[in-house]
């Protein structure tokens, strides 16, 4: 691409997050990670609560990185579709495999 205007032409679709936003997101990620690890050490925390809060916290981190660092929040919807669609399929398959292998405590293996 021997085009000196390419950088300007390339200006991303939609707004760009500022450096300040990026740093804030990074701080949030660090804080949430610390919270996750701390949650592990809460004495007597019921398992269900532990697991669900860890999943929620990591989901928040996941979407912060995807939305801001990977810019998907500001990007063309088609890029969102290209990623989120397969992500949903992957999660559904993980859940199905867990059920089929009785990895859920709630669904013990049904024996014929």
């Amino acid at each position: 691409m021997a085009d000196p205007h390419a950088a300007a032409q390339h200006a991303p679709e939609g707004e760009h997050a500022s450096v300040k936003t990026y740093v804030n997101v990074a701080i949030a990620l660090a804080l949430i990670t610390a919270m996750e690890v701390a949650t592990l050490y809460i004495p007597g925390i019921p398992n269900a609560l532990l697991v669900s809060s860890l999943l929620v916290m990591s989901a928040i981190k996941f979407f912060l990185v995807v939305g801001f660092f990977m810019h998907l929040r500001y990007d063309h919807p088609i890029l969102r579709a290209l990623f989120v669609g397969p992500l949903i399929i992957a999660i559904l398959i993980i859940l199905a495999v867990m059920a089929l292998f009785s990895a859920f405590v709630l669904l013990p293996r049904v024996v014929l």
Partner: protein
Amino acid sequence: MATQAAFMPGAKVETLTFWGTVASWLTTVDHKRIGILYGSSAFIFFLVGGIEALIMRLQLARPDNTLVGAERFNELFTMHGTTMIFLAVMPLSAAFFNYMIPLMIGARDVAFPRLNALSYWIFLSGALFLNSSWLFGLAPDGGWFGYANLTTSQFSPRHTIDFWMFGLQILGISSMLAGFNFLVTIINMRAPGMTLMRMPVFIWMSFVTQFLLVLAFPAITVALILLMFDRFFGTLFYAPAAGADPLLWQHLFWIFGHPEVYILILPAMGIVSEVLPTFARKPLFGAPVVIYSGIMIGFFGFGVWSHHMFSVGMGPVADAAFSVSTMLIAVPTGVKILNWIGTLWGGSIRFRTPLYFALGFIAMFTMGGLSGIMHASPPVDLQQTDSYFVVAHFHYVLFGGSIFGLFGGIYYWWPKITGKMLDERLGLWHFWLMMIGFNVTFFPQHYLGLIGMPRRIYTYAGDLGWNFWNLVSTIGAFLIAVSLLFFIVNAFRSLRSGAVASNDPWDGRTLEWAIPSPPPVYNFARVPLVQDRDDFWLQKYGDGHGAAPRPKPAPVTAAEIAAIHMPSASHWPIVLAIALAVMISGLLISMYQVIVGGLATLYLMYKFAVELHRPPAGHGH
């Protein structure tokens, strides 16, 4: 061929030497040539798979036969299945993706031309690697589905499974790279005015297929990686003694395997959706509905995989869930069949070879679908699974469906690709002999399955009542072979001295018929401006509601053609593919080869990536 030389717009027309021609094919990045490479390779492997089938049918023609023994028979059905699926049907579909997708969306090439070439050369190296196993007496013998833990080192100590495992990994890389390429091409390289809903249905079906490719192959990649680790590094993924569950393989394999069968059928469905409107001179009935049905089939195809596992003891909840999802997926499939029939109804039908194959597809695929719906019921499937009834079912959908549809595409697009016409009479001989031969081969197999003949047996006792229909089935197989001779003769004659094809020999509806046969290297001298679905038809005839046919545009000038810039040829794709093959085959030979091949692969990936990084001014893009 003088046409080959006239590629670069404005280039001097020079005829290449023999080696020059070979080099130009080895370094081509032109989607049309890559399509031809895929198609020719696929057809050769189709014949290879066919011979494997004929040997099996000869063995089974009589009870207690001794033509081949049990071990050899295992190799034959393994290689027949693997070859037909991965080396024949898929690359034949890829041939059409390559050749036709840019043409039908009004583009000059795919999004990543060099990656496209790379996909082909990786495919070829995988195909050769897999088949080289015959030469070493190590042909894979674990079935095309390679169930663990039969395929672990404990029960398959020889390298047969490794040829299969690594062969499939190589082929998987090829398929996925192509999938990314066509996804981006279809989304991002359409001609102005071609909205998604104005795309031809073949493009839509191909589009869904690319999604299936890139989402399903990772599952088998993982299944194969786990198997490789078990076989080479002593992991325990498929080791029941360590608490592992052999069903892990089956689940991962079929999470891939079920979308795979839609990968095998959707392109053929797309072809049929183009052929029928052309030869009925009527638009596809309910095109949006056909498109949505295709999307639904693709999406829900990820939710039915365990219907291949009804007999393994998953329990009633799992069985019921997958049974329901399987029955539901029959709905969009049936809808498409009705829409195809609706297309023909009231049409002004011209019977030509492509149409015969499309009609054959509808009839045979419907029959395959009926036996399929029977399999969707677990109790019924308990009798049918692993019997010849299943063999009949999948051959009806894969041969009667995919192969018939793909042959329809070959006859339909042959004039566009080669600039010559195929002979109609020979075409009809091919069709009818194949139709009759196919049904004679596979229809009796429904009966054989129902009276208890299991799959994958190399012989059978003479007093079970199976003799007669096995013999009939074998005769049918040879009829199929004869029918193919008609096609081969037709093809050679056409290339040598067939009637010259015009731009639009069938009075078609889609953009590829607007350009010369064969197309110039740049496809479209002017990028088309699309106003509706079946835009070319509307250009020719108007829409009968007030939009008149459009006037012929001013002739293209030499200056316009000189301004078109096509990507340059590149030797990196084939060299990188060879390095990859050297690395992977090294796993069966020596660690040094793996290291050298691996380093070469990494280095060549770098060279490939930077080839166009800072091109000299005025060069590639």
